[in-house]
């Protein structure tokens, strides 16, 4: 198959899914976001607040990343048929982690809403896993 007269394609791709998925990744980052919001509420040190802001934005971005991986890589068309609200759930959850949500605010209640959405996704996830 390897020859000097024909160029064989050899893969240097990463996209060989490992098949390991768990909504806990998104939840842990969201819990981190919530904790940062709580800590900032009790701390007036400007340096601390700047660091908290940066870390909270990074963690919020990670929440979105992990949710998107579940959305695009784990869930398949039959799942979306069975759970018609799944697309909306992901849309709402990633919005809650975005600039209009935990990324842009220090509101613990928004972080709680985000955690609740992740929990809803997680419930569906484990139902499909155990199906």
């Amino acid at each position, binding site marked *: 198959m*390897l020859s000097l007269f024909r160029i*064989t394609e050899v*893969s240097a*791709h*990463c996209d060989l899914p*490992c098949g390991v998925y768990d909504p806990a990744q998104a939840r842990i980052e969201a819990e981190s976001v919530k904790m940062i919001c709580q800590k900032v509420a009790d701390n007036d040190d400007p340096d601390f607040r700047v660091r908290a802001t940066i870390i909270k934005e990074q963690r919020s971005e990670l929440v979105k990343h992990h949710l998107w991986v579940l959305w695009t890589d784990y869930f398949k068309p039959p799942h979306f048929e069975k759970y018609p609200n799944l697309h909306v759930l992901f849309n709402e959850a990633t919005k809650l982690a975005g600039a209009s949500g935990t990324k842009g605010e220090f509101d613990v209640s928004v972080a709680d809403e985000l955690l609740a959405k992740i929990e809803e996704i997680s419930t569906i996830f484990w139902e499909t896993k155990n199906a």
Partner: protein
Amino acid sequence: MIPLPALVRVRGRSMLPTYRDGDVLLVVRGVRPRPGRAAVVRLPPDSSGRSRPLSVKRVTGPDPDAAGRWWVDSDNAAEGVTSSDVGSLDECDILAVVAGLVWRPLG
């Protein structure tokens, strides 16, 4: 087996910065794997049993726990299946050793 040259084209980014998508490499079959050299390898099937395509990897060294087996890695730490994922490879799965870059697409 006598050494036989062959040509392969790289697809993907897991060997960056050494080899880019589209690079054509001259490889040699029938020679022993050499630590530090890139090679064309056959990877074991994935967890669902689907076969993986022929791949280009860096042979990092002999498996200390199994004679005749080799550890492989990607040059791009952020991408690519490595021996950390699939374990060491049998020497018969190291199909060819990369001799060098023959041609690189412009741009």
